[in-house]
C-alpha cells in the first residue's frame, strides 16, 4: 500500500518537472536516464559525443531522443543506448541514429557488449523519411557488429514497425511483462487488413514473444528487475569474438561429486526425469541463466559457468514432449549454438533424445530443414563441445544434436546409457526378434563412461583437454583480437 501512496506523492511532486519522466512514471516505467542509472555501475556512464550537435534544418527528432554512451557493468565495459520516449518519442530520427551509429562503431574498438534499451512509440509521421534513413543507419551498423560483439536488446515499452528489426538483429532479446510490445505491423493495420481484432498485448506482448514466437529470450516483471538481470547477464558475456569466455571467481570445486545424480534416471525407461536438475548440479553454484525458458521448453538453452568460465548449455528436457526435437526446439538450439560459436563459448550438451517429434504439423513446419540447420551449426563448430548422455541418444535425433559429428567434441555416457539407432525394445518389436543387448552398438561412439556423481569433474576434464587441442580457426572475424 505504501508504495502506491509513495507513487502518488511522487507523481504529484513531478508536476512541472520533466514531462518525459512524469509520463514514464505514471505508466510504471523509468525514464531513459534512470534506466541507465540502474543498469550500469554508479558513476561509470560516459556519453558519446555526437559528431555534430548542430540541428539540421527540417529535422523533427532531436538528438536527445536517445541517450548513448560507454559504461561499466560489474567493471566490464558495455556500450549502452536508451530511447527516451519523452523526447521526440525516442524515435531513431537522423540525429539520434547518428549517435547510436557512433556508439556501435566504438563498440568494436575496446570491445564490449552492446545493450539497447528500447522504448519508443515510433517515428512521428511527419518525420517518416528521416526515420527510414535513421533506422537504415542503425540497422546497418548493427548488422556489421553481428558475430563480433554480443548485442542485447531489452524492450521496455513499445517497439513497432521498423524499430522492431533492432531486436530482430540482436543476439539476445528480453522484454518487460505488461509494459512492452513488439511487432512489425501494429494492431490497427492487423485489424483492418487481416481482420484480426487483436490488442497490442495479444499481438506482440511479452507473453506472446516469450512462449509463442520465441523472439524474447526472457521476460522480467518490471524495469528494475529487468535491468538487474541484465547486469547479471553481463557477467556471462564475452567482450567480443575472440576475447574468450569471461571468468568469475568461484569457490565451487570443479571435482565436486554429486551422489544424488546416481538416482536421477528412473528405473522405468518410460518415466521422464528433470534434466534441469542435472544441468544445475553440474554447473558452478547450480546457476543457469536460462534463455528462452518458455519457448520450446523441450530444449533447454542457457548460460552457466564451469570452473568460473562461461559455458553454453543445451539440454533435451524429457519432462516436456519427452525431450523430442521439434521445429521450435531445433531453431532455438541452432540460434543459441551459433551464438556460442561466434563468441567462443564452450558448449555442454545434455542429450536425452528419443527422436524427433512425430506428426504432420512438424513435417509441414519444415522440421527437416530446422533439424538439419542445427546439425549444420554443430558440425561446423570449433568451440569445445562435451556431450553427456544420461540415458539414451537415438538415431537421427542424436545426430541432429551433433553427437559424433564435427570436431572438438567428446561424448560422455552414464552407465547403461544407449547411444544407438533406436531403443532396444523398439528394435525388437520392429524386427520381431528378442531384445538385442542394450547399447551394444553405441560403445564405440562414446569417449567415456562416467559415473553420474562425477559428471561435473569429467566434463571439466574433457573441456580442458579439448581446449588444449583446439583446432585453429580458419580465420577470425575482422577486427576481432587474436589470442
Amino acid at each position: 500500500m505504501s508504495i502506491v501512496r509513495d507513487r502518488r506523492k511522487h507523481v504529484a511532486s513531478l508536476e512541472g518537472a520533466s514531462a518525459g519522466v512524469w509520463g514514464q512514471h505514471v505508466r510504471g516505467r523509468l525514464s531513459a536516464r534512470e534506466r541507465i542509472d540502474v543498469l550500469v555501475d554508479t558513476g561509470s556512464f560516459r556519453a558519446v559525443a555526437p559528431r555534430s550537435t548542430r540541428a539540421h534544418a527540417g529535422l523533427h527528432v532531436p538528438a536527445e531522443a536517445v541517450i548513448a554512451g560507454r559504461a561499466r557493468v560489474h567493471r566490464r565495459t558495455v556500450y549502452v543506448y536508451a530511447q527516451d520516449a519523452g523526447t521526440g518519442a525516442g524515435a531513431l530520427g537522423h540525429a539520434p541514429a547518428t549517435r547510436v551509429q557512433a556508439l556501435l562503431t566504438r563498440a568494436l574498438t575496446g570491445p564490449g557488449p552492446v545493450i539497447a534499451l528500447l522504448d519508443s512509440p515510433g517515428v512521428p509521421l511527419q518525420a517518416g523519411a528521416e526515420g527510414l534513413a535513421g533506422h537504415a543507419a542503425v540497422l546497418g551498423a548493427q548488422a556489421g557488429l553481428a558475430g563480433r560483439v554480443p548485442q542485447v536488446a531489452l524492450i521496455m515499452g513499445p517497439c513497432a514497425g521498423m524499430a522492431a528489426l533492432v531486436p530482430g538483429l540482436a543476439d539476445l532479446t528480453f522484454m518487460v511483462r505488461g509494459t512492452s510490445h513488439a511487432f512489425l505491423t501494429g494492431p490497427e493495420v492487423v485489424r483492418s487488413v487481416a481482420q484480426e481484432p487483436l490488442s497490442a498485448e495479444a499481438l506482440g506482448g511479452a507473453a506472446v514473444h516469450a512462449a509463442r514466437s520465441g523472439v524474447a529470450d526472457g521476460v522480467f516483471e518490471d524495469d528494475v528487475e529487468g535491468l538487474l538481470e541484465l547486469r547479471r547477464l553481463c557477467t556471462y558475456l564475452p567482450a567480443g569474438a575472440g576475447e574468450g569466455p569471461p571468468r568469475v571467481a568461484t569457490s565451487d570445486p570443479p571435482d565436486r561429486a554429486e551422489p544424488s545424480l546416481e538416482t536421477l534416471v528412473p528405473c522405468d525407461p518410460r518415466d521422464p526425469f528433470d534434466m534441469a536438475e542435472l544441468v544445475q548440479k553440474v554447473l558452478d553454484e547450480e546457476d543457469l541463466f536460462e534463455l528462452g525458458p518458455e519457448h520450446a521448453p523441450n530444449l533447454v538453452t542457457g548460460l552457466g559457468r564451469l570452473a568460473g568460465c562461461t559455458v553454453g548449455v543445451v539440454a533435451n528436457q524429457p519432462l516436456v514432449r519427452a525431450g523430442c526435437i521439434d521445429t521450435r526446439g531445433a531453431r532455438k538450439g541452432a540460434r543459441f549454438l551459433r551464438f556460442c560459436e561466434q563468441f567462443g563459448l564452450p558448449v555442454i550438451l545434455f542429450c536425452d533424445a528419443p527422436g524427433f517429434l512425430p506428426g504432420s504439423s512438424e513435417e509441414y513446419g519444415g522440421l527437416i530443414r530446422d533439424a538439419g540447420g542445427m546439425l549444420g551449426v554443430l558440425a561446423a563448430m570449433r568451440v569445445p563441445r562435451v556431450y553427456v548422455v544420461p540415458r539414451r541418444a537415438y538415431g537421427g535425433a542424436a545426430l541432429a544434436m551433433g553427437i559424433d559429428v564435427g570436431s572438438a567434441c567428446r561424448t560422455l555416457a552414464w552407465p547403461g546409457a544407449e547411444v544407438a539407432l533406436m531403443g532396444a525394445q523398439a528394435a525388437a518389436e520392429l524386427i520381431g526378434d528378442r531384445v538385442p543387448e542394450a547399447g551394444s552398438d553405441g560403445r564405440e561412439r562414446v569417449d567415456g563412461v562416467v559415473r553420474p556423481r562425477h559428471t561435473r569433474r569429467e566434463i571439466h576434464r574433457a573441456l580442458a583437454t579439448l581446449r588444449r587441442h583446439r583446432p585453429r580457426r580458419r580465420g577470425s572475424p575482422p577486427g576481432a583480437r587474436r589470442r
Partner: protein
Amino acid sequence: MRPRRVRPSRGRERVFDKILVANRGEIACRIMRTAHRLGIETVAVYSEADRGALHTRMADEAICIGPAPPAQSYLAIDAVVRACRETGARAVHPGYGFLAENENFARAASGQGIVFVGPEPRAIAAMGDKLTSKAIAAEAGVSVIPGHPEPVSDPQRALAIAREIGYPVMLKASAGGGGKGMRRARDDAECREGFERARSEARAAFGDDRILIERFIEQPRHVEMQVVADRYGNVVSLGERECSIQRRHQKVIEEAPSPFLDEATRQAMAEQARALARAVDYRSAGTVEFVVDAQHRFYFLEMNTRIQVEHPVTEEVTGLDLVELMIRVAAGERLPVAQSDVTMHGCAIEARVYAEDPAAGFLPSAGRLVRYRPPRAGRKLRVDDGVYEGATVPVHYDPMLAKVIATGATRAAAIERLQRSLDAFYIRGVAHNLRFLAAILEHPRFREGRFSTRFVAEEYPAGFRPSHGTSDEPSTLVLVAAYVHARECERYDGAGVGARRAARGSPQQHWVVCIDDRRWPVAVRLVRGGCDARCGGREVPVRSAWRPGERLLRGAVNGTSVCVQVERRGPRYRLARGAVEADVTVLTPRAAELAPHVHGGPRGGTARYLRAPMPGQLVHLAVGPEEEIRTGQMLAVIEAMKMEHTLYAETDGRVKATFLSPGALLAVDEVILEFE
C-alpha cells in the same frame, strides 16, 4: 543410533541371527541400526515404489514384497511372512503403523516359528479395541474419563448423568465423528439445550440420535507413559513424553519430560501405566496414552502396543535403547534394567520433518529430494531419517522425512539446539515444514510450556505461511542480505582478491535491502572474514566465511551465532532462518529510489481451472456446473497418501463445468473443474 548409557550386550551370543524389519522409512533404518550393533543380520522388505529407498540399502538383504499400495505390500501379512521364510529371518520387527498392531500378523508369524518383536497377540487384541481397553484399564485401577458407558436418549436421564459426572460435560453422538453432534455443557441449562441440539444434529447426520455423555476436558494435554515389560513379570516405566503439539491429530513436536507434570502426577501416572501393563500381561515396549487437564488430572486414552514414532526422546533422557530392549525381551531375555536403575537426565525434544506444505493446509508433497542436507548429528543432536539426497518421496505412504532430536541440560537449551539444527536443515524438491517447526519453537506459549492439544489449531487456524520478518527493526536477515550481496558483487567485480585490500577493508558501500515494501539502507565495509555493517545508526559486525554459491551462511551477527539459508533466485535472494523466509532484493540507493515507481503490467487472470495438486483419487465434488462460489468455499476433496485433502476456492466466481466425478483417479495437474 548412538547408545550413550545403554548396557553393552555383555558378550553374550547374538539374540537372533537374522531379523526382518517389516516397515519402511526412518523406523526401518532405526531398527536396523540397533540390530547391526547387536550383530544381527537384517532383512528389509520393500514395495515397488520403494526400490532403492534407504532402508533397502542399509539392510544386509532386501526383498520386494509387492506393488506400491500398502495393502498389497507392507500390509500384506502373507507376503511379509513369506519373506521371513525365504530369507530365513528368525524374528520380525514391525516398527510402527502398517502391521505393528495387527494381532493376525503376530499370530501368523508365531505360527511359522518366527518371533514377533512385540507384545503377545492377546495384549494387542485387548488394547486394540477402545471399549475393551477402557474396561480393562478401569479394572486395573487406571483413571478413565468419567462418563456413562451407555448411550442415552432421554433428556431427564441425561441431566442426571451429567450431574453425576460433574460439569463441564461433553455430549456427543454415539454414532458420530468429525465434530458433528458434539456439544459442550457447563451447567444444567446448557445440558438441556445442548442435548436436544446434539440429538437433532445426530439424527440428521447419522440417523441415530443416541448420545454419549462424558467429562469435558479443558485445555487437554497429551502425555504418554513409556513402559517395557518382559515375560518374567518385570515391568518398568521409562518416564513420560509430552506430545500435545499436534496438527490434525498428528504429533509434530514431542518432548521428555513434560514441562507440565509435577512429580506426584508423574509417579501416579507411571504407577497406573505399569498396572495396566501387568493387567494385560504385557511383554514388550508399549505406551500408555493419557489426556491431562489443566488441574493435572489425567485420564487413560489408549495403549499403543508398539514402538512409537517419538520414542527417541525417551531414549535420549534415559539412555536406553528401546529397540534393543524389545529385541531382547522378544528373545526371552530378562529386562536388563530394574525400575530403580532408570534415571532421567536433562531434556530431549523431537521435531518431525514432513514433506508437506504448511501454507496449503499441510498438504503432503511427494517427489524427488533434489537437495536433502540434514544437520550434522552429534553428541546432543540425533537425526533419525529414512531418505537421502536423490531419493524419491512416494505418494503412497506417510510423508515424514526425518526426526531431529535435540538434548540439553534444560528445556531451553534443548529448544535452542533444535532451532539451530533446523536452520541448517536444507531441503529442496519437495515442500517441507521446517519453517513451521521453527515457528512453534519460537512461540512464547511453547517456550513457557503453556499449550494444549489445540495449540496449532488456535495459533495457526488458517495454516502456516513463513513470515517475511515482522519487525521494522533491521533484522539479522537484512544484515546478512547486505553482506551476501556485497560479497557477490565483489567477486563479479573481480575485486577483493588482494591480501592488502582484504586487510584494509573495502571502501564503504551503500546498499538498500528490500523485503516486500520495507527497505533498510545498510552501509557495508567488507573486511576479512565478514563485514562491518551500519544500519539504523548502529554499527553491527557480521562475521562469516561464507562464499558465493554456498547454501548455508554460518557465522555471527553482532556476536550471536546464526545459520541462514541462502538461495539465489534471479535478481533476488531467498533467505530463510527460523520461522522467516523472505525474498530479498538488494539495490543501490539510486535503484531503490526508483524501484517504487515501476510496476509490470497486470498479470494473467486468475487460474481458470481447478487442478489436482497431487496424484490421488477424487472423493467428493462439492460444487456443480453454474454454481456460484465464494472465496474459501470447499470445492473438492481428494484422497492421497492415505489422507483426505480439501481444495478450496481461491476467489469468488462461478463454476463453468466439471469434468470428473467422485471415484476418478487423478494425475497431478489434472483438471477437475473449470471456472468462468
